[in-house]
């Protein structure tokens, strides 16, 4: 064909890696402004209204305490973060694997799903004292176990939903190419499930941090952040307690952000990711 008519629509340029992950300064500015206003309001109101220390200390005092004892807080934070990360990896991996098995053998899935959903509604954190008994109070495995179980259910349920909510015609097309079950998984079901999986993984980062810290509250190693928060609060060292909470918050947000960035990289094809560039 020699007659190439002018294109009715011009192709949209493809985004670079940087643009896919980050956003422009303008997008961030409103959020940054709110952040600064929030800090100013905290500092101003606490000092201006002379709020009692045990209610909420001024941010500047908390930061000073944090800085003075930074290596202690960072070590405690990393100790607990490792518990959370371990639980996250174990729980999420198990959740995805079980979802794959249940999606592949549907009758099995139908038999087990009601129990999975019921188990999901159990307040799993209530088991923390029990896992302390199982693995030992000082063993990080007891906190990892709680974090892992917390992560397992949302990841499993979401992955299963992603693997099974494929339009029938998408499967028919694969069957027309004589694809077997595993090939359909590899080429259609798993890519289709990825957005669901990442949504669950982001939730799981939060649950893993909660599991590890609250697990500490029931007793554990002196190196752990949760233990320290409880101890400081008990001895009225409010700045120290808040400093530890701040460390936990920063770690939690960082954990979440890391998974969110991985999501943007893995799902660069997804409308929700590509659409945000324009």
């Amino acid at each position, binding site marked *: 064909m020699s007659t190439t008519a002018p294109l009715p629509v011009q192709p949209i340029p493809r985004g670079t890696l940087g643009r896919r992950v980050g956003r422009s300064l303008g997008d961030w500015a409103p959020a940054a402004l709110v952040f600064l206003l929030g800090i100013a309001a905290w500092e101003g109101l606490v000092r201006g209204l002379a709020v009692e220390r045990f209610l909420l200390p001024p941010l500047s005092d908390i930061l000073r305490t944090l800085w003075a004892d930074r290596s202690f807080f960072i070590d405690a934070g990393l100790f607990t973060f490792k518990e959370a990360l371990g639980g996250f990896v174990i729980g999420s991996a198990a959740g995805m694997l079980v979802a794959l098995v249940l999606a592949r053998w549907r009758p099995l899935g139908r038999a087990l799903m009601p129990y999975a959903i019921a188990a999901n509604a159990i307040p799993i954190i209530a088991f923390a004292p029990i896992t302390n008994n199982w693995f030992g109070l000082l063993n990080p495995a007891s906190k990892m176990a709680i974090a892992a179980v917390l992560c397992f259910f949302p990841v499993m349920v979401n992955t299963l939903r992603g693997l099974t909510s494929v339009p029938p015609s998408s499967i028919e*097309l694969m069957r027309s190419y004589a694809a077997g079950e595993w090939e359909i998984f590899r080429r259609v079901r798993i890519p289709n499930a990825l957005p669901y999986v990442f949504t669950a993984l982001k939730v799981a980062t939060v649950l893993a941090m909660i599991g590890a810290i609250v697990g500490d509250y029931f007793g554990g190693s002196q190196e752990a952040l949760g233990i320290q928060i409880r101890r400081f609060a008990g001895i009225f060292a409010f700045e120290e307690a808040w400093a530890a909470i701040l460390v936990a918050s920063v770690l939690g947000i960082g954990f979440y952000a890391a998974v969110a960035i991985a999501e943007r990289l893995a799902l660069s094809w997804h409308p929700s990711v590509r659409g945000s560039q324009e």
Partner: protein
Amino acid sequence: MSRRVSVVSLRGLSKEFSRGGVVALQNIDLEIAPGEFVSLIGPSGCGKSTLLRVIGDLVEPTGGEVVVNGKSARQARLDRDYGIVFQDAVLYDWRTVAKNIALPLEMGGWNRGRRRARVGEMIELVELGGFEGHHPWQLSGGMQQRVSIARALSFDPSLLLMDEPFGALDEMTRERLNMELLRIWERARSTIVFVTHSISEAVFLSTRVVVMSARPGQITGVVEVDLPQPRNAETRGEPRFFELVTEVRERLRAGGLDTAGEGGEEELIAAEEGL
């Protein structure tokens, strides 16, 4: 029985969907010889898409026999004997346009170089140059449909099942792709089963037009299209073309009156206006 084997052979075929108890197809008999271009036309819901799916072994018939290329429909599917264009494009969002087109080639074991060359030809055929790296949701409906046509043609299947492939296209693109499809069909000596709502498109393209009626889905008539090959721009102006269009329309009307289908009537009018 030693005559040329039919590419598609349907005997006493019926399909009832258990959910809702809809009889989508009833007692369908149809033989399609190698190199034929058969169009299916009929009111909405008369089972055209279901018929294509049964031929492709994507839907199990509840009665009768399906033989494709002299073997069971299942074996033909496993041998990748046919390419299919669904009524909606069915593209994978995580694949770019080029990778969607390359999918059957990947699965057929084509190496990277051959794949790239073939995808390039196909992109040119459907005029999507510049959109190779785009994802399906960045395309218009007609562009998506063209990707799905390119994908079905890419691996040169000897049997093409096409479900309203040009439904979402503008008139100019539609006519051009009609000509391209005929060219491919003549060159590759392939067999095509083509669903359309346009009487004139059916007559222009086909060697035979199969007219169906709804509830239950049945074949109510077959019109042999004896227009000379190859078809070209003049074909549409020939008196014989108009006679055949009228004949198909009469058959459709007869089928529509028999069943007095509510939806069927509307669709019939729409089909006539498409002329």
